[in-house]
């Protein structure tokens, strides 16, 4: 009786104890589980941490673009995002014009490079002639050559031809690298289209170029699209040529950013907004051609 009473007395304590025990057990299990999860995904977690550190400069710049101009030197992290930097950037119109110039020059140089380069790349894949190796080396050197080697003669020639500070001149000089890239990249895409398909078409009386147009080109369409996008990105990203060959009329977005840096002092919000706008199309395109990107970026590392 007494015993049961004491037991009865202790019941809450015992219950509490067993609850605490099981909680502890669960917690311990949770902890080991957590450690297990950590260990199983150690690689992914490390990768994410490294990614965060490496991306911090980009994230910081984008965050500055959305930070109110008055708070830009504040050490606090919290703020209400605003578009005022973008508004003041686009308000006077000169940056908008520069963006427009960039679009026009990039699109034109891409279009002309594709128009000339795609058929040439096709011929270079299908036709085994003697000078092929020399042409390949020439194209490689063109891709590798330092821009300064082209800029000096182009600058002197453009003065003479009146092409200085024009979009046409810029388009022309962008083809020095884009044409080489198209020829180089498209070769590997055409190589992966089986030649037997064209040969069958030829036997059926199809001409070389109509066979190319109807059979090879549609099969190489993804490669075509990603090559065009890469050309656009390379032209869009150029700074050196635009810096040297433009003054006021044909200034591109990349040169406009540097002008901000030099003349508008330390308006970091505005400058960051400009940087964000210029990298935006590149990031968008990157999502689109993710699958083919690897191929394009290692171009030249590929042996044809």
């Amino acid at each position, binding site marked *: 009786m007494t015993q049961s009473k004491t037991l009865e007395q202790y019941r809450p304590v015992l219950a509490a104890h067993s609850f605490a025990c099981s909680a502890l057990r669960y917690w311990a299990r949770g902890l080991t589980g957590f450690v297990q999860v950590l260990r199983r995904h150690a690689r992914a977690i490390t990768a994410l941490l490294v990614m965060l550190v490496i991306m911090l400069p980009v994230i910081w*710049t984008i965050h500055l673009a959305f930070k109110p101009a008055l708070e830009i030197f504040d050490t606090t992290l919290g703020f209400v995002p605003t578009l005022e930097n973008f508004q003041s950037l686009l308000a006077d119109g000169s940056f908008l014009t520069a963006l427009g110039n960039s679009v026009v020059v990039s699109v034109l140089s891409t279009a002309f490079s594709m128009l000339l380069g795609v058929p*040439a790349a096709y011929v270079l894949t*299908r036709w085994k002639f003697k000078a092929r190796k020399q042409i390949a080396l020439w194209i490689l050197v063109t891709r590798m*050559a330092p821009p300064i080697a082209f800029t000096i003669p182009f600058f002197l020639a453009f003065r003479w031809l009146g092409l200085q500070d024009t979009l046409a001149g810029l388009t022309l000089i962008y083809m*020095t690298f884009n*044409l080489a890239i198209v020829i180089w990249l498209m070769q590997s895409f055409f190589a992966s289209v089986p030649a037997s398909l064209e040969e069958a078409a030829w036997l059926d009386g199809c001409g070389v170029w109509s066979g190319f147009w109807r059979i090879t080109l549609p099969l190489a369409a993804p490669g075509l699209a990603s090559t065009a996008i890469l050309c656009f990105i390379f032209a869009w990203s150029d700074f*050196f040529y635009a810096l040297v060959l433009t003054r006021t009329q044909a200034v591109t977005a990349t040169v406009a950013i540097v002008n901000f840096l030099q003349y508008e002092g330390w308006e970091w919000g505005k400058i960051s907004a400009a940087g964000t706008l210029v990298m935006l199309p590149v990031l968008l395109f990157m999502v689109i051609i993710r699958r083919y990107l690897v191929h394009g*970026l290692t171009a030249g590392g590929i042996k044809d």
Partner: protein
Amino acid sequence: MRANASCKPVSWEQSRNRSFMLGLLPALAVLLVITLAPAVALFVTSLTPLSLVNPATSFNFSDPLVNFRQLMQDERFLGSAITQCKLSLLTVAMQLTAGTGLALLLNGKSSVLQYARSVFLIPMLIPPVVVALIWKIIYSPDISPMHRLLEFSGLTLEALTTNPHTALWAIAVADTWQWFPFTLLMILASLHMLPADPVEAARMDGASRLQVLRYIVLPHIRPVLVVCGLFRLIDSFKAFPLIYILTDGGPGNVTEVSNYYGFTQAFNFSYWGYGSAIAVLILAGVFILSLIVTQFPRNSHDPIKNT
């Protein structure tokens, strides 16, 4: 192909070749005009003391090697060549290390790793000017997260880009950040080609992870690593936006590389002949390195070809 050619009359072969010519020639002609002609013009200019201030210098070939002789005695040029070597070796070494390390980390099948792989490409795709701008922000003490973090932990750091001892390192770090994805991509592709059998066999025989890395993985990726290094070495001669925006060649001349020196000689001082001579020397270096690249046997371990 051969069989077809033999049953068709020869004229078909000829007409096909003519069609091929038609497709190839326009591109080659344009390429000739926009790349080979400028190269020749550059070489010719480098043989004259051309400067636009003095019209008499335009086609003056009386002393064709004057620029090159002068370059060999120009302390600032020789200094820029040494800076170039330092910067190139530093950045290539750092890129190869960072790229290979990350490739080994990211070489897995989980979706997180695949996602991370594409995010890691971003630095290489951002326009170089924006990269330079981003690092300008990182190196400006009043706005930089790095300086804020250090300040928070009680350390003060003066601006790295204005200190002659750290300026070149600052450029090298930014350049490495921009270009490590190239090595990462190439090495990842090479790791995909790594045959599983030798690794499994070695693991079964009790080899540690480190031993597998040292004796199987590294020898496998070595050819790709060499090609990668050569490519980056060639491209490192072109480093321009980072130097232009972060340091402008300074403080003093500590970050002035040959490319940059040539740019200032030609476009700031209008010494076109002299600038061209510098460009010719850089071009010659690039040409030699390109030749080495094409000679390199890459077939067995070609990262892209086999994917």
